[in-house]
């Protein structure tokens, strides 16, 4: 009895008897290696099922069935707005990650003297190679994302695409548009300029005027009833940690549902 484990299924012999091409050998070796560890075979049925669901055979779409392309072609560019907002989101995410290398969310004061946050934005704009462009890209990607999301919502409204069975995705869209706006708002506060500060002031007052839970909301979102270092810190963490995760997940869900249900064409 050797201490070496036996290969119960003799994969090696089986593979040698098959006259496989090098590519096939590599593929099978990898598959067997993974299968021994993860038991992929247990999930094969699910994968197969998934494959057929993804390549689902749908009935002809209305436009296709009645050959209505000549009637609807002018709608089609508007159907790209959802994709455009996603693309803009990705551009903003990449440029934002690069900006994050240089930005520091520290603002001890609001007395008109440049704070650390303000100075780091100035550094990005003035000292860093391509830094001004980077900030510009981030800002414009955000602006375009918001615009595309608004127009996307209008397209969905006016083509009645929110109707059964897509009500749930409409609600998810409302959540997404709100998250986009919060994204924009938190980002607006980060340079800690005059505009940022006073927009923050409005935010605090809005939270405080919510009945019953107002003070709690102000504490949670702004770290107090007046703007301070805590506010900037919270806005920063919301902007670069919470919102990206939440928004990305919900966007994936949103697009997944669209994929599953198909595009709603005007009839």
């Amino acid at each position, binding site marked *: 009895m050797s201490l070496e484990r036996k290969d119960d299924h003799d994969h090696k012999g089986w593979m040698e008897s098959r006259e496989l091409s090098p590519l096939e050998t590599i593929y099978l070796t990898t598959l067997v290696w993974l299968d021994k560890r993860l038991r992929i075979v247990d999930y094969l049925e699910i994968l197969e099922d998934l494959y057929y669901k993804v390549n689902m055979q749908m009935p002809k779409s209305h436009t296709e069935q009645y050959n209505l392309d000549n009637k609807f072609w002018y709608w089609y560019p508007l159907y790209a707005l959802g994709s455009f907002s996603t693309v803009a989101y990705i551009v903003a995410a990449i440029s934002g990650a690069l900006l994050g290398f240089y930005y520091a969310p520290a603002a001890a004061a609001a007395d008109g003297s440049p704070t650390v946050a303000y100075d780091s934005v100035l550094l990005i704009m003035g000292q860093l190679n391509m830094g001004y462009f980077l900030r510009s890209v981030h800002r414009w990607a955000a*602006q375009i994302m918001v615009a595309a999301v608004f127009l996307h919502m209008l397209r969905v409204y006016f083509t009645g695409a929110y109707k059964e069975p897509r009500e749930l995705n409409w609600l998810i869209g409302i959540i997404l548009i709100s998250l986009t706006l919060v994204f924009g708002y938190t980002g607006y506060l980060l340079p800690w300029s005059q*505009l940022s500060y006073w927009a923050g002031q409005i935010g605090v007052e809005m939270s405080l005027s919510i009945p019953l839970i107002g003070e709690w909301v102000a504490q949670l979102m702004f770290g107090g009833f007046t703007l301070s270092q805590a506010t900037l810190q919270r806005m920063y963490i919301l902007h670069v940690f919470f919102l990206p995760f939440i928004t990305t997940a919900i966007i994936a869900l949103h697009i997944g549902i669209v994929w599953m249900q198909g595009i709603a064409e005007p009839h």
Partner: protein
Amino acid sequence: MSDNDSDNDDVRTDGSGSGIVAPDDETPSWSERKQRTQGLSRLTYEYFERGRREDQDLRQQSDYVERDVLAFPAWPHEMMRNLALTSFFVGMILFVSAALPPEMPNPANSSVTPAIILPDWYLYWSFGLLKLGPLNPDLAILGGQKIMADRTYGVLANVVVVGFVAIVPFLNKGAARRPVEQPFWAAVGMSGVIFSLTIAALSIKNLVPMNSHLLFDLTFLVPIVSGTITYAVLKTMREGYMFTLNRRYYRLRPPK
């Protein structure tokens, strides 16, 4: 080595077995297990079985086309088209950002209130809803006092607007897709769009060269007027439009 033969009763303890116990006659199969269950899981099973039958019926219908690929092939056609559109779009963002870089205002100063306090443009509508104080009703029963503070009223207005947009699918049902088929809802949508613009104008009223009372009135009048116009136009278009549409349908699928 024959110690892993099934007739050998020795239990292998070196961890090299498959660890899977073969099913005997008593072990229910997976489908039996599903059929046997009670209550909610049973109900779920029945529902999905019914769904599967309905799917099958659909597949057997005459206008159902089985195809390997739904219309345009995803690879390479659709992917290439997407890549081209995406590159163009990203290029557009880069171009705009190179052409119009952002400004940097002064550092934050809590002792100097700027003349103009504004969020980014996409929050103007929300900012404008905070300025609806004049509409906040004061009740005679409270001796002319307002039932809630103006700013609470503004926050509530935001909730109401977003809430209304959220419940639209539950108010407007049916299969109609085109504005012309539902002039009323198209009018609601159009007045909503115009209202979002006018309320945005209201939020920057100190920049709009207009009497602020007039602006306040127009904020609500213009959406109503444009909604009415939309309704009238669509209602007028409707008859001819529906006629052409029906003719097209009946040509393709003549009634029996």
